[in-house]
């Protein structure tokens, strides 16, 4: 039997681990790279800012871009206040009781539900039962249900990581609990909360299934006028032009994918930089 020296074992182990790391990075680089390579030529100001023409076979993708912005902003307006408020309640006020354990369990499980289930749930509750129709508001509500658990769990984590001693000092000087949360805990937890918010909204920006039945339009000749109108959106538009429209120029498909990926990547980079800012700022 050949006995390897410890140094050889070490070298082999590191090579295997290193290869595994490279192997996971390669598909991402290849996907993003090939899309950018094939899509870059299609992207121009015209492509970004014009309405689609010829049954979407030429022209731009402006209504899909603006639709996604509407959906992200609307989802943020609903999910950020609710998510942060819930996180504050769970981290600062709730005692460990049967009910809070149930709430936590629900949040963890909500985060694991497939997105198409959210879409069908939104169709049942918002579109049909509450009679909001297939609309921006129904889509935002549906996306919010999907986003809120992400925001709650990251925000709660961020709030809990603020040292207990800060709270005790503040209360010990005569601040109320709310003043303590508002003036001590929230500012310290803010970067962590922001990271969660961005990641949550990022998911909302990229998902197709939740908006499929609740607010996304196949094609609209004009921009939506109110929150009760349907809207086009980037991920659904990409699905449509890739599978539903015959004789679709491939450059437009790649161009749309490039725009969507850029949108999502930008938000991810933003989240990453907020996180590193948080690490630098944290001194305790």
């Amino acid at each position, binding site marked *: 039997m050949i006995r390897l020296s410890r140094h050889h074992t070490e070298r082999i182990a590191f090579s295997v681990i290193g290869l595994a790391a490279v192997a996971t990075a390669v598909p991402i680089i290849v996907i993003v790279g090939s899309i950018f390579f094939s899509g870059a030529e299609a992207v121009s100001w015209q492509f970004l800012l014009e309405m689609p023409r010829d049954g979407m076979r030429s022209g731009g993708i402006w209504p899909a871009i603006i639709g996604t912005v509407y959906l992200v902003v609307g989802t943020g307006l609903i999910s950020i206040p609710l998510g942060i408020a819930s996180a504050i309640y769970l981290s600062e006020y709730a005692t460990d009781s049967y009910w809070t354990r149930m709430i936590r369990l629900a949040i963890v499980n909500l985060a694991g539900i497939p997105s198409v289930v959210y879409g069908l749930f939104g169709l049942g509750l918002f579109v049909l039962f509450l009679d909001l129709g297939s609309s921006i508001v129904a889509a935002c509500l549906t996306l919010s249900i999907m986003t809120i658990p992400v925001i709650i769990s990251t925000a709660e984590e961020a709030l809990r990581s603020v040292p207990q001693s800060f709270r005790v000092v503040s209360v010990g*000087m005569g601040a109320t609990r709310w003043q303590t949360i508002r003036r001590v805990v929230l500012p310290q937890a803010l970067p962590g909360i922001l990271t969660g918010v961005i990641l949550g909204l990022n998911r909302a920006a990229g998902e197709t299934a939740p908006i499929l039945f609740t607010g996304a339009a196949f094609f609209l000749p004009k921009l939506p006028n109110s929150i009760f109108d349907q809207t086009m959106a980037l991920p659904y538009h990409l699905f449509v032009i890739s599978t539903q429209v015959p004789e679709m120029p491939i450059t437009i498909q790649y161009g749309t994918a490039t725009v969507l990926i850029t949108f999502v990547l930008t938000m991810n980079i933003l989240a990453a930089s907020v996180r590193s800012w948080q690490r630098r700022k944290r001194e305790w």
Partner: protein
Amino acid sequence: MSDEITFQIEQLNFYYGNTQALRDVTLTVLPREITALIGPSGCGKSTFLRCLNRMNDTITDTRISGSIVLNGQNIYAPNIDETELRRQVGLVFQRPNPFPQSIFDNVAFGPRVLGIAYGNDLQELVVQSLRAAALWDEIKEDLKQPALSLSLGQQQRLCIARVLAVTPDVILMDEPCSALDPIATNQIEELIQELKEHYTIVIVTHNMQQAARVSDKTGFFWLGELIEFDETTTIFTRPSLQQTEDYVTGRFG
């Protein structure tokens, strides 16, 4: 405050769940005196200290009986605003725990939150507090520097300045020097002596010499009871109980 009795504690009992931490503690704290509380770990002296500004209220499953009267008012009476009480009775902790902010923001925290002072008044109050905490001369060049860049001893004096900024009458100190080196400890002890001019001070300490050096009265806690309370010189020279003598001379504890 004048000649009033500051704290009058009678028959105080305190429980964590089913465990009794304090038994029938009766004690009077006089204004502008330094009262030291000594005793072995777990004897209830810190618990007692935290009853004095109701910090124990924040712990769930605790119970209290007896009375603590501060300047004629029972602080556990239902009409008492415990936030106002905590402003009046400040607490300095064992480990220096400044916020990760500038020196100025640390001291200004209380006045800002409680709405005590703004603008120039706030500046003035911060400077006064830093002076009173004997930190001003060391940091006056740069109030914007981060509090955590100070030495531990300076951080502890900063924490004292932070408490002084909300204009308390009484300052409670829970082993304020246990994390500090002898020089920093000495500075805090000198500061405590100076603070006595304006404030009533109750200090919990593990350090016999410290109690002997700084305090006017000393109380000896043993298994949740205050078994001896007297002038500090009496406690350290001719205590009436054998247990006290054994403890202060270092024979146990």
